[in-house]
């Protein structure tokens, strides 16, 4: 028997979660369900919420190479939204919707995120040592802004080769950061294996596990870490660590370290697996539960049936059993090339679930340019929607009346170059979910 809901969101990343939350808020009586296959792209992402850091290349001058390279970052992303080319997801939903979506996010995130006090971008240190513009950042990173001129001590660990603190400090200086940064490399108290997972570091601190300390018996991991850092402090008012400072209780861990050292503590966002990204996912899933969204996770949507230009139902594969799921409105938020909402073969690029139209060059050699950071066509692969976010077919007609798309499954923007990934997922998720909620009633 079919499972029946009012709104069905497919894909549980930032865009899908936002869409489900927006639908639930817009239509409080509607039954909203989110079906998702695997962990989302957030496990890779740094957890920052970028809105727009650099202007995309305007149309026409789309020559090979050097698109944004060497640009200075945008100070006020919201002021730039109206200048974007036609077809860019922000242009589709409009600048006002982007603001609304960020406000919606700020409400959900509460005090886990900061940056909402201003329209301006912040410049956040990266683990490579340069800075990047972003609109919202985890509270754990708030004291680490590079656009804050207090001196900083960066602390790295011998066993975490991703973050070489002295190098990052030198790089910040080369990037012109307005403060003195120093870096030291320590061994992490309680880490005995060279290949411990990042969660191991975080859990040591979360649980304040007893670790061996020089001379003494055993002390808590937080005290031991503070003690190791203390002798290296030269009066810096803030100390930055790679983003491993707690998994379940990051605020408490930071507070213990801050109290012990008398400084502010911050995290530098890291590459995969990214704890800040996973914390954001946890936060969203808690909000979904609070909002009464029904969750079906660990299973993919594999097929669908239509009737009257609309999707009648989709089929979920639950360990081989094909279970129909029926709804009035659908939101496709299956991600881009990374989330597997967009796939490619030797001949063509496609959206594998509904086979919605994905504009792309027919010659595979036109999918990329030679400069790795050049204007990469593949980075813009995705669906082209109307202003309602309904994916359009090759003739610019909506593929289905009751299907909207949100997040990285959309095309027409290069989030990596623009620094707009999470912002687009929020804005389009918010709009798609709100519309789906309205029309489900």
């Amino acid at each position, binding site marked *: 028997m079919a499972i029946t809901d009012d709104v069905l969101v497919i894909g549980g990343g930032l865009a899908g979660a936002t869409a489900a939350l927006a639908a639930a808020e817009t239509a409080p009586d509607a039954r909203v369900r989110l079906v998702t296959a695997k962990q989302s792209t957030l496990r890779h992402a740094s957890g920052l919420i970028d809105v727009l850091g650099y202007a995309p290349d305007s149309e026409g001058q789309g020559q090979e190479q050097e698109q944004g390279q060497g640009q200075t970052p945008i100070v006020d992303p919201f002021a730039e939204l109206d200048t974007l080319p036609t077809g860019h997801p922000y242009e589709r939903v409009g600048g006002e919707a982007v603001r609304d979506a960020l406000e919606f996010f700020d409400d959900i995130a509460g005090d886990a995120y900061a940056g909402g006090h201003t329209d301006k971008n912040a*410049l956040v240190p*990266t683990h490579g040592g340069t800075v990047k*513009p972003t609109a919202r950042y985890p509270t754990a990173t708030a004291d680490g802004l590079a656009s804050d001129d207090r001196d900083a001590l960066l602390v790295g660990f011998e066993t975490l080769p991703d973050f*070489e603190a002295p190098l990052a400090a030198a790089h910040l200086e080369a990037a012109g950061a307005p403060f003195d940064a120093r870096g030291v490399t320590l061994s992490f108290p309680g880490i005995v294996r060279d290949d411990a997972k990042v969660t191991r570091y975080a859990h040591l601190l979360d649980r304040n596990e007893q670790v061996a300390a020089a001379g003494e018996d055993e002390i808590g991991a937080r005290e031991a870490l503070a003690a190791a850092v203390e002798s290296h402090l030269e009066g810096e008012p803030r100390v930055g660590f790679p983003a491993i400072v707690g998994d379940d209780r990051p605020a408490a861990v930071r507070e213990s370290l801050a109290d012990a050292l008398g400084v502010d503590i911050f995290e530098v966002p890291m590459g*995969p697996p990214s704890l800040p990204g996973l914390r954001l996912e946890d936060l969203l899933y808690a909000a979904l539960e609070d909002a009464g969204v029904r969750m079906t996770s660990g299973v993919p949507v594999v097929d669908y049936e239509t009737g009257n230009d609309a999707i009648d139902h989709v089929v979920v594969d639950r360990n081989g059993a094909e279970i129909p799921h029926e709804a009035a409105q659908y939101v496709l938020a299956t991600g881009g090339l990374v989330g597997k909402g967009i796939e490619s073969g030797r001949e063509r690029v496609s959206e594998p679930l509904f086979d919605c139209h994905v504009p792309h060059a027919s010659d595979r050699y036109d999918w990329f340019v030679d400069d790795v950071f050049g204007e990469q066509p593949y980075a813009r692969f995705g669906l082209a929607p109307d202003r309602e976010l309904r994916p359009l077919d090759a003739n610019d007609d909506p593929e289905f009346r009751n299907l909207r798309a949100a997040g990285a499954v959309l095309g027409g923007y290069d989030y990596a170059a623009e620094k707009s990934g999470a912002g687009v997922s929020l804005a389009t998720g918010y709009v798609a979910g709100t519309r789906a909620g309205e029309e489900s009633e």
Partner: protein
Amino acid sequence: MAHDTTVLVLGGGSTGCGIARDLAIRGVDVTLVERGNLTGGTTGRMHGLLHSGGRYAVSDQASATECIEENEILRDIASHCVEETGGLFVQRPEDSDEYFREKLAGCRDCGIPATVLSGREAREIEPYLAEDVARAIRVPDGAVDPFRLCVANALDAERHGARVETHAEVIDLLREGDDIYGVEVRHDSGPGKRTHATPGTTEEITAEYVVNATGAWAGRIGAMADLDVAVRPSKGVMTIMNVRQVDTVINRCRPKGDADIIVPHETTAILGTTDEEVDDPDDYPEEQWEVDQMIDTLSELVPIIEDARTIRSFWGVRPLYEPPGTGTQDPTDITRDFFLLDHAERDGVGGMSSIVGGKFTTYRAMAEEIADHVCAKLGVDARCVTAEEPLPGSEDIAVLEEGMDSFGLRSPIARRSKQRLGSRAPDVLETNENEANPVICQCEGVTRAEIQDAVEQSGSDLNAVRIRTRASMGNCQGGFCCQNMANELHPRYDEETVRDALDELFQERWKGQRHALWGEQLSQAMLNYALHATTMNRDNDPANAPAQVDYAQFDGGA
């Protein structure tokens, strides 16, 4: 007149490095110059098949005989660079029985151990072979790592006093009358400590004798002294698969094979290759259809290849040579034999010989022959010992095994590190117990100690570190570990050098992937791009930008 060096070898591929080693061991003062990095030419862009000779057993029995002899020698002196996979010549129903018989007889004529397997027996060895494979001939083909083998030769040459100068391009031959007495090189900025001279500066290096071992580029060098060396460069494509579908080298048993070999290498398998003449070895088209066609052809032998994930494709150019007047039309018909051109005998110009043609498998024999020739000219009567002297890293397996255990490295990594490093493993892996030795490249399991060792030897040139260690050559194509490799350069090298080295490595890794950009690999490319551009902002790093960022204008916190 005093010369800077006795023998000057041009070209740092397998041939040039092999010659430098051979001469250096014989006590000759040698300098080798290479325009890019070692293995930067064809040697770093080949299929890695250690031929048994089976491939040439019908068409070119002299080459076949030489292959089996050298195959046996290399398994002995360079066991750490060779994997003895064995090889199969596979017959499909449409392939001729007569050719199969000729192949078998040819192998036996040339002394290549060969046994016939039924289709079922062949599938027992290689379960992914197509159902309709009829029979196969088993021969001692192997997989060889050209990077390690070439570098091992260069290292040994250096140990015996040779000067090895990379990033030094020959821009002119010094010729006076009918005598060539050296070259002019232009030094370039190879990052790292191998840079002996300021980039852009030129240097004249004089020598008693010059050996032109520039492979597909030998004609260019010849032209610098108005000598005609008719190399016919011929390109071939290879595609790396993400898993090792076969453990044995798979060849198609038919007369003129194109795109018909699969060679297993460490955790991957490499498909290859094609043969098409090109005009310019530095600038030739790399085309999609070549890759597609090869995958189609090889999936007739191993059907799962059709849908398997590829990592990247790359091309190389063979330095084929024909004596003047042969006029072969099809490059697949040009002999794989090598030719020693003594320009004194041939052109009346003394002081230089060129060595052209040949194969990687027979590099040592080529080197021996030319070293004999040079020694005769110089009046040196030392004997060649390269067929017996193991290459650095290949001796002492037992010591190694012991060492591994005591290092406490877990077996997959230990095993692979050990294979890579040969007898140098204890030195490299015996890090201070208190020093952390985390894995820097997860895909290939390369540890900090190995990277540090490679940096010690190659300086800040991360591409050279990659070649020595295989770091950044696995599934993620460096997306996740390039940054970590660069981090290892600090504080030995300053921040700016590290930044440049990272950029160079990352661009180089991208170059190789472009021909396999679909499916999983395209998704991986997007992930890598996002990691480097979004998370790290390496595309718009203010440290590289011309304009200053005004930090005060941005959000400085609540």
